[in-house]
């Protein structure tokens, strides 16, 4: 419990360093300072908050029919709160507490047990990372999230749809995904990127995003569930009405999984559509690695993971 509390502070301090805590933040709710990125249950939210951990947002009410942008895309523009249970801590079901992570539900709907279908050696690697190498967690180093992690990113995001593109602007780390929908091919497989290479197309009312070229340096969560450069992700994003979007993603990587697996979640429209994403200056105020070292017994300093 002591460890958990320390980790809670970790992220609150990163956020505070980024001058963000007093600003309105999509999806974070009022309990953000208490919970932070590594927070526990969503105490302090309205009834039912605990279902979503600290990233509480009431299930959005049914809205109006989905409109169209000037170039004919289904219009998803605005601020959205991801609801993926506690996937942000661990993407798979995690019924028992781990260092820094309380028990909770993930977002995996296939296989039915909600667990990543690792090959044995990959399962062992993930377990080892969680137990002994938590200081390697990519976000503690302010690396941008990969795909699909970016879709259930903390603090929510804004969708903007200029002609020919869909952009996801995330408050966390103040980054973007710019997805062309003009039918272009992927870039060469020789280039690997943290964010990978995403190309999109509309299939009726569903935006289908195909992502390859990831560099294998990102995790799905804070729990050691790692990726490799062989990962291939197909996201299907379907606006249901003006307040609700269904999201699912199939993840395939035959080098570490026995079968493809699927996550699913919802995006709820944030009630305040006049909000503005604030700057989250991650690199500039990062204390995560220090806290990992002191808080959960990591050996970051010896491993050279710490600057200075």
């Amino acid at each position, binding site marked *: 419990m002591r460890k958990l509390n320390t980790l809670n502070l970790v992220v609150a301090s990163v956020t505070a360093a980024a*001058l963000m805590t*007093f*600003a309105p933040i999509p999806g974070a709710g009022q309990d953000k300072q208490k919970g932070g990125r590594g927070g526990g249950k969503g105490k302090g939210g309205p009834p039912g908050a605990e279902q979503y951990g600290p990233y509480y947002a009431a299930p959005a009410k049914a809205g109006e029919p989905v409109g169209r942008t*000037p*170039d004919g895309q289904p219009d998803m*523009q605005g601020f959205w709160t991801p609801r993926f249970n506690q996937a942000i801590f661990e993407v798979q079901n995690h019924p028992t507490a781990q260092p820094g992570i309380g028990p909770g539900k993930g977002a995996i709907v296939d296989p039915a047990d909600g667990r990543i279908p690792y090959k044995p050696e990959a399962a062992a690697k993930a377990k080892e990372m969680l137990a002994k190498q938590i200081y390697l967690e990519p976000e503690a*180093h*302010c*690396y*941008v999230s990969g795909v699909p992690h970016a879709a259930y990113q903390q603090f929510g995001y804004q969708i*903007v*749809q*200029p*002609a020919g*593109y869909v*952009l996801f*602007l995330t408050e966390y*780390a*103040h*980054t*973007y995904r*710019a997805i*062309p929908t003009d039918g*272009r*091919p992927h*870039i060469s497989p020789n*280039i690997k*990127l*943290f*964010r990978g290479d995403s190309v999109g197309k509309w299939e009726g009312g569903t935006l289908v995003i195909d992502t390859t070229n990831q560099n294998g*340096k990102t995790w799905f969560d804070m729990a050691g569930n790692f990726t490799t450069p062989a990962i291939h992700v197909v996201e299907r994003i379907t606006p249901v009405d003006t307040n609700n979007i269904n999201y699912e993603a199939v993840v395939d990587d035959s080098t570490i999984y026995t079968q493809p697996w699927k996550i699913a979640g919802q995006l709820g429209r944030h009630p305040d559509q006049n909000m*503005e*994403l*604030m*700057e989250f*200056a991650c*690199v*500039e105020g990062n204390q995560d690695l220090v806290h990992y070292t002191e808080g959960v017994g990591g050996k970051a300093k010896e491993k*050279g*993971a710490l*600057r200075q």
Partner: protein
Amino acid sequence: MRYPTALLVSLIAAVPLAAQSYKAPRTADGKPDLQGIWQVMNTAAVNLEDHIAVLGMPAGRSVIVDPPDGKIPYTPAAAQKQKENFKNRAKADPLNICYIPGVPRVMYLPFPIQIVETPKYVLMASEFAHTLRMVYMNGTKHPDVALFWIGDSRGHWEGETLVVDVANNLPDTWFDRSGNFHSDALHIVERITRTEPDILTYEATLEDPQVFTRPWTIRMLLYRHKEPNFKLLEYECNAYLEDAEKENK
């Protein structure tokens, strides 16, 4: 703290653009269409002023169009500080430790910038560290809550020109690799005009009474990337810095 707006306007008027004959195509809501992926072809990122080459960095002419001598009008104390910055630049340049570059520096780094427009926003996304500039076009004022590495940008259209007022700038950013700097009193007015189909003329007037004796103006061109399927890749500066530090151990 700030110069009267009238003074700033008169200074801008004193350095007019070449007669604007080209009229940009319009977006769906009738605004000039500046969308695309753009990049400078100059050495402003090395030094805004005239500079000779040094190892690995080409020479370049000043992008400062006002004052006419092409030099930043520092106060004497600030000129001294700039000299120290230059001497210590390897360690002191915030970009060398991967901090957010700030405005206007992000606009002339050797990295492409994608501009997109919607009725409410103009977005400028740099390939450098996924740096994002959101320009609010809805008539709102700068917030009074905080200073930002990338500042706070509020814009409006004046005919063919996107005019962006940038305030709330943190004092920790530099203008270039040569230690040219500012304080938290920095106020910028940018004027961005599509002067040819594939050229944006970028102009910025910078005022900061704590550091400069008068406002001054830079002007440069951004060129459209026309390679087929060109897109932003990524430059995750802090990740590469960690790698380099490990290699050097």
